[in-house]
């Protein structure tokens, strides 16, 4: 009896000792932090996923929530370049026509905000965890630098759209300290500068990467992005004016690296045929595989009124604004490279006539010649006819050499006026587009405004719209208001369709200055109590 009790007691002790193990859960059919971040492969996979945050965001986030659609809608609609051809009250039109009924509850604001932070969390995870992964030091440092570049891009988007935002710089690993207070725009930009500086110090130049790594962030990309953020910050007063000087320095460094150049063929940059052009500094990589491709097709492709769609589910949600379309210089190669002038539908080639003297003839052209589609000509950029939604193969270009040149001109002009260097940069871009050189000896302000007009033509539907507008707000407001007048009910709006009860961009002149920033999304304010009372002015 005594012996059995001893045996029992001993087995109890043994049991207590192993009880922790007995009750410990370890992932067996999924990946968790305990069985991940263990080697170079894991570190690479974590970094790859940070890139993927621009392309596909899984449920409950939506693939449409960021660069799949909503980002372009809130960035491009408020310009005079495109319209969505929907009625005035439609949730998409609220941006298009500066509709006063727009509220912070708009779902696109939330989706862009949430998607950007989902991407930031992925980048933070790399920045926090990869330094502890046993692996090749050079690669390890590079991966962290890549993540810092990606984090900076997300914060650049956030601060440009919403102003100062909460700064989260480490991965969310526990359910504590979840509510981060809003930082000032200055401190967000400061963090962006810091990240890009650190990234540029480590990242290889484009040519130093192995071929299989094409698409990763480069030193040139980090410097260009840094310059971009400096310009934006200086223009909105979130950084000192000397930032322009620093931006020019960085851009010159990229130029002298001889890694990049203007491409002779503008249109090839957006049709998938020239994705490794020396002009491209950084692009989101897309291939024709579901989940790893682009998603803009169904939003930009022409929706047929009759016959079959040229792209599955096509909806014509980015029609060119007619006055803008008309304002291209006749020689400008960018018009036909940016807008779809011809396509094949049901075995028939549909062509939009080059010259349309009147609105009536344009309407006729739309209804009869242009495939009977609804709305004006649609973007050709990023339109991968023949692919399916979510598996479109054309890369989205975030940074390219023409941008670098126009930014250089802008930075130089801001500090030293329109110097030869500034003129040279602008005219290089104009020459490639086959438009005449800029009138010489412009005043600094006129030079700046012409620069921004040029940016509209050069970067239409590339995700620069409201960022550019906010960098030169008075100019942008005047220009968009003028276009609103033109497209009004008595004007030349041809985007009116059976869907449309009002012509877009009619509603709200003068444009309210609150549109210099979008409101902080309602849901973000509800869930993060520290944002209470911190809404942007006017919203």
């Amino acid at each position, binding site marked *: *009896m005594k012996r*059995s*009790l001893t*045996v*029992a*007691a001993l*087995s*109890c002790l043994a*049991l207590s000792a192993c*009880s922790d193990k*007995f*009750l410990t*859960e370890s*992932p*067996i*059919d*999924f*990946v*968790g*932090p305990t069985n*991940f971040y263990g080697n170079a492969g894991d570190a*690479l*996979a*974590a970094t*790859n*996923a*940070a*890139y*993927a945050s621009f392309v596909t965001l*899984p449920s*409950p*986030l939506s693939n449409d929530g960021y660069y799949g659609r909503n980002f372009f809608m809130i960035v491009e609609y408020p310009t005079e370049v495109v319209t969505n051809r929907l009625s005035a009250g439609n949730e998409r039109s609220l941006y298009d026509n500066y509709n006063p009924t727009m*509220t912070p509850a708009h779902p696109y604001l*939330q989706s862009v905000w*949430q998607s950007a*932070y*989902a991407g*930031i*969390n992925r980048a933070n995870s790399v920045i926090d965890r990869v330094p502890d992964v046993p692996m090749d030091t050079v690669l390890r440092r590079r991966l962290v630098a890549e993540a810092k570049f990606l984090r900076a891009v997300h914060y650049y988007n956030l601060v440009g759209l919403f102003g100062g*935002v909460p700064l*989260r710089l480490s991965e*969310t*690993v*526990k*359910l504590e300290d*979840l*509510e*981060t207070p809003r930082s000032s725009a200055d401190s967000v930009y400061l963090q962006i500068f810091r990240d890009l500086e650190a990234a540029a110090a480590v990242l290889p130049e484009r040519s130093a990467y192995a071929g*299989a*790594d*094409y698409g990763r962030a480069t030193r040139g990309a980090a410097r260009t992005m840094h310059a971009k953020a400096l310009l934006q910050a200086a223009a909105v007063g979130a950084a000192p004016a000397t930032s322009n000087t620093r931006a020019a320095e960085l851009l010159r460094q990229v130029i002298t690296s001889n890694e990049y150049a203007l491409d002779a063929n503008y249109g090839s940059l957006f049709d998938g045929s020239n994705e490794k052009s020396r002009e491209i500094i950084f692009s989101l*990589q897309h*291939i024709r*595989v579901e989940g*790893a491709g682009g998603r803009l097709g169904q939003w930009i492709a022409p929706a047929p009124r009759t016959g079959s769609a040229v792209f599955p589910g096509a909806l014509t949600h980015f029609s060119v604004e007619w006055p803008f379309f008309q304002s291209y210089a006749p020689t400008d190669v960018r018009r036909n490279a940016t807008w779809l002038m011809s396509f094949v539908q049901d075995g028939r080639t549909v062509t939009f006539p080059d010259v349309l003297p009147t609105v009536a003839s344009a309407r006729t052209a739309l209804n009869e010649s242009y495939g009977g589609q609804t709305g004006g000509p649609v973007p050709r950029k990023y339109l991968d006819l023949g692919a399916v939604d979510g598996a479109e193969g054309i890369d989205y270009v975030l940074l390219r050499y023409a941008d670098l040149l126009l930014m250089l001109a802008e930075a130089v002009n801001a500090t030293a006026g329109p110097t030869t260097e500034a003129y040279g940069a602008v005219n290089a871009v104009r020459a490639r587009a086959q438009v005449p050189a800029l009138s010489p000896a412009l005043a600094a302000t006129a030079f700046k405004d012409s620069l921004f007009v040029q940016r509209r033509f050069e970067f239409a539907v590339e995700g620069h719209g409201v960022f550019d507008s906010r960098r030169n707000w008075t100019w942008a407001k005047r220009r968009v208001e003028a276009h609103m007048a033109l497209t009004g009910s008595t004007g030349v709006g041809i985007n009116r369709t059976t869907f449309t009860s009002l012509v877009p961009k009619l509603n709200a002149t003068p444009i309210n200055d609150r549109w210099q920033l979008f409101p902080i*999304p309602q*849901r*973000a304010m509800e*869930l*993060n109590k520290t944002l209470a009372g911190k809404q942007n002015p006017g919203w």
Partner: protein
Amino acid sequence: MQWLRTLFTLGACAAMAVVPSPLRAQSIARIDGVVRDSATAALLPNVTVTAVGTRVNIATNEAGRYSLRVPAGTYIVRAQRIGFAAVSQSVTVAAGATATLDFRLPPRAVQLDAVVSVGYGTQRRRDLTGAVTSVNTEALANAPIVSVDQLLAGTAPGVAVSSASNAPGGGISVRVRGSSSITGNAEPLYVIDGFPIENDLEGSSVGDGGRSRTVPANPLSALNPSDIESIQILKDASATAIYGARGANGVVIINTKQGQGIKPQFTLDFYTGMQRVAKTYDLLDAQGYMDYANEWARNSSLAEPFPDSLRRNITANTDWQDEIFRDAGIQSFQLTMRGATAGTNRTRYALSGGLVNQDGIILGSGLRRISGRANVSQQIGAKFEVGANLTGSRVSTRSAATDGQQNRNAGVVSGALQYQPILPVRRANGTYSYIFTDIPSSLGPPETPNPISMALDVADSLTDARLLANSYAEYALFPSLRFRVSLGADYADRGRYTYFPRTTLRGSETNGEAIRASGLTTSWLNENTVTWQKTLGAHAFTVLGGFTRQAQEQTSENANNTQFVSDINGYNNIGAGTQQGGPSISSGRTAWTLMSYLGRVNYTLADRYLFTFTGRRDGSSRFGSGKKWGVFPSAAFAWRVSDESFLKNSKVIDDLKIRTSYGTVGNPSIRPYNSLARLNDQTYSFNGSLVPGYYPFAVANPDLTWETTTERNGGLDLSLFDRVTITADAYTKTTKDLLLTVQLPLETGFSTALQNLGSIRNSGVEVDVGVQVFRPSAKAVAWRTAANFARNRNRVLELGGIQEIQAAFITQDFNLPGSRIIAGQPIGTFYGFISDGVIRDAADSASFTTLNFATGRRSRPGEMKIRDVAGRDSAGRLVMVPDGRITLDDRTIIGDPTPNFTFGWSNTLSWRGFALVGLLQGVRGNKVLNVNRLRSEGSPRSNAQKDRYFDRWTPTNIDGSYPSIGENPNQVGTNNYTSDLLEDGSFVRLRALSLSWNVPERLLSARGFSTARLYLTGSNLVTWTKYDGFNPDVSSGGVGSSNRGVDIGAYPLARSFTLGLTVGY
């Protein structure tokens, strides 16, 4: 809590000391005697005679005789049998001697000495301190019960049973004392022969047959109800605390039949029956439908879809309900052998084999179960006993798609309600008709597949092979100290194989689609307990301590393929599909473990004051790393008032006991690994090639833990005149730390996290009354009646700062908003517009001036009056003040799917060998959302109910109860419903009415038969209800706590008649 932990550890250590000491040679003595009925002096067989405090017991034989072999000594010997009061007598017997001890048992209508299982032990009913209901299965003994949980409806107060699907093998959802979880599993814990089984229907279902919304199959259908000896339901915290973290939803203890008697008894049980759909919709015929469609077109300013020229050519007049339903057979065959040997080394055995074959009332559906059971126990000397309960079964279900959807994924029932009578089942060329192409397109017909093609051609087969084995060894070190060790295993191999051939809509689009899903669940259990029982003067103790461990592992595989060369092989050769990119395949594996220390002290003072202290300390792998262990204590006190001197000799009150209890139990319904951080995979590409990626998908919550329910219970047990028993209980249970999916600040990079927040309260009363109106006697009629009643009130107290939780859409076809969980309201209320009937005429219209956002104008005569309940203030905030406009803000709470009360009433009339047994079951005050009517009262894209057409509003019939024929008049805008679709789900049902005849013994004994019984049973004969649809007892939304009480093409209830025969040899 340190002392508790120490206590548990000590208890467990004691329990581990189960090493038998060598058997000593003993001096054996005998106690012999006969047992008689004290009223009639008849000899009583099957009386259990026990030497109290030992394991020695035996049943009397046919001649009422028993013989016990015991070591020499003084014993209290007790004789007991159902229907009689137990009698104990003392006897002293010397070594080698034989003492004679005869008993005379007084007959009793009221059973106080009946033994009930309380988890890790048994108790006499008179000694219970907690709320424990023994299910009265007698009323359903002759009904064709295929699954155990069907026994619970109407037979136990406080146990609400709703059929998630009435399909053979379909899921049934059980709530003991209301829903105390919002997102977690709220089904009770089932303990089958000591083996706890978490009945997580969603978690254990394998595949969905390719349908995204469907009702999971019922895992309990593996257990053969004929094998069941007793069902006990532990309800209050005192009773369930012994199951600790798993006790909060109540515990259903099921014990199967054990060997008894002396000689082997063979029983053959056979029944055969016929089932038919209990109720159908009264739908328009072809002519009526075409009138209806034409009127719709006229009202919508469209051309008539069925002009006379067309009408002449339409010859079909299909009654689609007739086509999908059939008279379905059911047969069951069961052979049981039970027996025991005499003596100290007694063997008891119960073996059974059964076969059930049930066709469903919908074409193509059915169930077949083969089951076998072996319960064996062996006594080795007076101290040692080993035994095993083993059951194996294989359930094969042929499933016909029903429930859940209405358009492309609609099931057979939805399809039959939508398909118009002008469509033939098959076209002239033999192919199935298709509503989408065969109905004039101006009507905008839905893409609903042909219901007959779904029923007959889709192969959807589920198999569930299960082996449940639990073996034990028990050793009595002293008569007062017993050790028990058990080791059990549960093995379930489930599969679901589905094939959509080309003749079906889905198969035609994919050139055949095959889905194979399989899952294997293995669970093992080790329990070690020690029980010490001692009476010291006026103090009686029963102390239980134990240590248990359980582990479960689940693996699953899924494969899906399309583009088959031909339909010949169906789902059997999934590799033959040529789907682009190959078949899609996935697999998974999860596991959980549970380790527990348990203890219970029953202390009785002076046989009148009863105390029970129960506690369990559970450690679960599913809880977060910081919250692995929880302690669940409870205490109860009962006072046997009737044993006080002032009542002891009462002629009126036989028994009166007042009970009260308080305690805390848990619900561990966290899925494995939910507390862990998780990464998901996602690809990106560089240089045109895919690269793998992993990103943070879920944030860890090391504090994730059980839901805690604190329950207080007060009750009384009363019996009067040896004729009437009353048990009444009142309770309040508050559950906190509800598992909720909480929205995180967007900046965290995550959307949601599972957290313990919020609380919910259930409170209610339960009454159970039994009356022996006329006692059994040789000549006259005997009548026993039993009624039970339960009322439960459910309130969500708070949701951790969240205003409300919206359940998933009710159907994906219409994105109908799901039920809402709102603080201050009952769980899962329906949310929609209130409709106040039809606007009769211009005067009525003038008084109803609200603008309707869906139409952009004021409503007109013949349209619905939608109630304006809310508006917005100048700051845009919602205020509950009418604003003259109908907008989405005017949606409000319109009903509660939970009944106000439930009741059951059974009656047994017996006369000579005849018995008539009936069971009424009722539910009152619940609302059912009849989504079927969305279509049958919508537009002629579906067929309509006769009522809806003939009682419609027209300018000449302004008192019509339905709105004028128009475009979906029962919806406001798209994707919203009105209170019009919400119906009173109250019902009273004659669940079973059974007449049986016991063949007189004199006709049998000559041929060696011991019993023979013939019976005829009608099930679900009548349902009194206002509900319009097939069956108000419905839950197409499955078994969760939200979206209950929704009817979307649910599998209808069957009415059945069975004829059965039971023969014992």
